[in-house]
């Protein structure tokens, strides 16, 4: 009888010892320990006991269970996180985990459902719960206005969700973009005119009419028309729209690392240009701009002989 008693006592003692031993091993190997490691350390430990200890640690929330290519891994969980989740059950912990993994891009509720394999009602309840606890928040995405993505409370939403500097409260600020557009263009145009007036050799003229994106960025910052801080990338997107307007052309040159504004050893140069041709002959006639051009035939309801637009244009 005493043998049995002894065994039980050793069992109890063993459990606490084993737990501590496992915790020490986890701390030694922060990447995680496998079953193999535990077995090597404590060869006398039976697999059942080991499993029991590990389950206990998991339910206490002190161990993290992960899987890698070779098998299961056990990792020490930081106690701070464990403290937060006190009072929550496993499902909530799981959802919280999924949201945390999404980082600052946020995750949609349907994706949470897929990842956690929980039914929709459960997920919604948990999300409400977490929100009331101020652990997560919902951010409206600018891409689809009805979609809400969830992310951790204290994270800054990513630019792709809020739209960055051009969006304020999910609204695209077109006037702001227009104003910036015009200001950049005026700056480049005045630089080009100054270069022409300087009457130097043509090569020098052309080079002095160029402005790097860094210069334009500094000019816009100094102008102070923007409430939001704009980065050089933002200015480059504005300058690209000027290229698509046909008012500006760009070239790339190699620059020394460390000069202001150089990115990966390159700098982008912009200069104002003139149009290549005057507005073409076709658009100087009413037919070139006519909204009902396709319907116009001789003898029809709409015909050149009775065209209202032509009559107005002729009397102009």
């Amino acid at each position, binding site marked *: 009888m005493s043998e049995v008693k002894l065994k039980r006592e050793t069992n109890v003692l063993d459990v606490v010892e084993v737990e501590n031993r496992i915790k020490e091993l986890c701390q030694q190997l922060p990447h995680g320990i496998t079953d193999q490691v535990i077995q090597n350390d404590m060869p006398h430990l039976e697999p059942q006991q080991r499993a029991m200890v590990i389950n206990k640690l998991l339910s206490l929330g002190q161990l993290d269970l992960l899987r890698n290519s070779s098998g299961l891994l056990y990792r020490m969980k930081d106690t701070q996180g464990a403290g937060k989740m006190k009072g929550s059950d496993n499902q909530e912990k799981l959802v919280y985990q999924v949201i945390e993994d999404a980082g600052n891009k946020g995750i949609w509720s349907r994706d949470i459902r897929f990842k956690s394999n929980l039914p929709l009602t459960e997920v919604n309840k948990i999300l409400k719960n977490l929100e009331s606890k101020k652990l997560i928040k919902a951010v409206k995405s600018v891409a689809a206005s009805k979609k809400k993505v969830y992310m951790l409370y204290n994270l800054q939403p990513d630019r792709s969700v809020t739209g960055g500097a051009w969006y304020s409260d999910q609204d695209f600020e077109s006037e702001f973009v227009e104003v910036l557009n015009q200001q950049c263009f005026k700056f480049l145009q005045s630089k080009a005119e100054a270069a022409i007036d300087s009457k130097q050799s043509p090569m020098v003229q052309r080079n002095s009419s160029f402005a790097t994106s860094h210069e334009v960025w500094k000019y816009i910052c100094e102008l102070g028309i923007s409430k939001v801080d704009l980065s050089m990338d933002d200015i480059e997107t504005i300058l690209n729209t000027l290229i698509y*307007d046909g008012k500006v052309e760009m070239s790339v040159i190699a620059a020394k690392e460390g000069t202001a504004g150089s990115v990966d050893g390159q700098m982008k140069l912009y200069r104002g240009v003139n149009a290549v041709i005057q507005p073409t002959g076709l658009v100087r006639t009413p037919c070139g701009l006519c909204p009902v051009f396709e319907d116009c035939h001789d003898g029809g309801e709409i015909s050149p002989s009775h065209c209202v637009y032509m009559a107005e244009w002729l009397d102009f």
Partner: protein
Amino acid sequence: MTAQEVRLCGLLLREHFGEVVEKVGTHLLRGGAQNLRIIIHETGVPLDLVKKSLCVLVQHGACVFSSGRKGAGSPTEYRTSCDRILRILRYPRYIYTTKTLYGDTGELIIEELLQRGHMTMSSTVKTVADRLTQNMEGQYLSVCINQGLSKLFSLFLKVFLVLRFLFFVEIEYDKETAAVLIPPFLLEGLCMDYGEVSNAFSKLVETHFLQRCPPMVAAGAAASAAPATPATPGTPAAPVSTAPPSPESFPDCYKVPHMTLVGRGKRQLCSEDGEDQRNAKRAKMDSQAHGDEGICWQVNFERFHLHFRDQAIISAVANKLDQTSSEIVRTMLRMSEVTTSPTATCTKPLSANEIFRSLPPSYNIARPIVDQYLTLLVDDPMEFVGKAGESGGGMYVVNLHRALANLARATLESVVQERFGSRSARIFRLLLRKRHLEQKQVEDFAMIPAKEAKDMLYTLLAQNLVQLQEIPKTPDFAPSRTFYLYTVNQLPTARMLLQNCYKTVANLIERRLFESRENKRLLEKSQRIEAILASLQASGAEPEQLTEVEEMITATEKQQLEALRLHINKLDSAENQVDESIFLLESYINSTASTS
């Protein structure tokens, strides 16, 4: 031959040659190659009128004939093509260009040849000399007495007038135009000499603006020539090729014939009507043996087109860069005028030394500066000029096809901009640069709010200026699982806009004819009154009679006439402006056709 082209050709033929020629011409355009019997049968026009119309069309080079398709015995077939008839739209531009290059003489030569189609050199010279003389004689000789250039001449004229004054000849001086009214008989010395006109003609031929018409090979002569030439047995019995030989395939194309033509232009004096009749009769009987029978000349449209193309490139360079660069490009193009073939992609390489030497002397620029300008031209993103090598200080070429493509692209962008606004133009240019984009990407790059960008894209798509390319992720083209990419194809869009241009010109011509028809009564009345006025003036009437006749037109009618005149001028100039777009788009499309 699209419907729009046929409609425009019909209107042009009607304006220039009349309704019968229009009927026959449009029938040939729609029907392809046909023989005489079919034309008569299907148009319902009598035989002799059909023959005359065909003659007119052949004379102007719009119609070609060849032996039938079914073999040597079948009747000749006639074929027209739209291109030649559409050139009629461009006649004013040809005449104006010649005026700027060769003065009034050249202008009249080209005008005569365009009106007559083919003419021999001697008849052209005579007609032009007569016309010039008529313009010079008569009532007013404009002399700008105060201009520095003609000081010597004005001095001479003053002496001349003083001498004449001594003989009590009436000389009037019109203060407004600084013109001197000199009676006709004093102008005996001022006639246009045939030699001057011949010189101008030769100059036009040297620069290839005029060319000989290819000699016609009659079907009968060909049959008799067949046994003479040792042809291989396999040659078909009809050696006349289906495609008419191009004028340039003949070696004498640009050779001025030796012509004996001495004399001067004849003035048309009203008192010499009877003598004129006798002169005309004598002219017909006089066999006009000037040594150039059978050698007819025509206008070389291709050469004019090359000239217009060069002008377009030079003005584009002037707009984009500056005046000096455009002068350099002009020099390069002038040097390669005769060495470059019409369909070449770029001119022959020219060395920087040559360019520097050939610059006009008024531009005294230093050699290194010229080099800098050339480097800038090469670096320009529009790629007008390219570098082909390093020998001789750098070999440079003008990229003709690329320049045409850029000009065509600028035309397309300008049409989109004027029609749909600058934001749509931004989207259009963005798609031209980036080729294929999704809708979301278009919104991001163009920085236009999503709703508006969507609207604009759909409008452009509805007008077929932008195309949609579907890339499926799954074999069923399920909309949620397909990529939809927007794209712009430059060549098909250019073709579509060209057809729109044709339709626009046809609309403008229609409107012009309508306005004239509407006010026909008024126009006739004003013509009658002008005729009455002219005859009264000639017979020496008093001023009261003249004012009485003038008052037959009321003030409102005068206003209406004035408005009508303005309308018609506006429509005319609009036609010419649209023709410029047509020229750019046609050149671009032809340049891609030749390279592909």
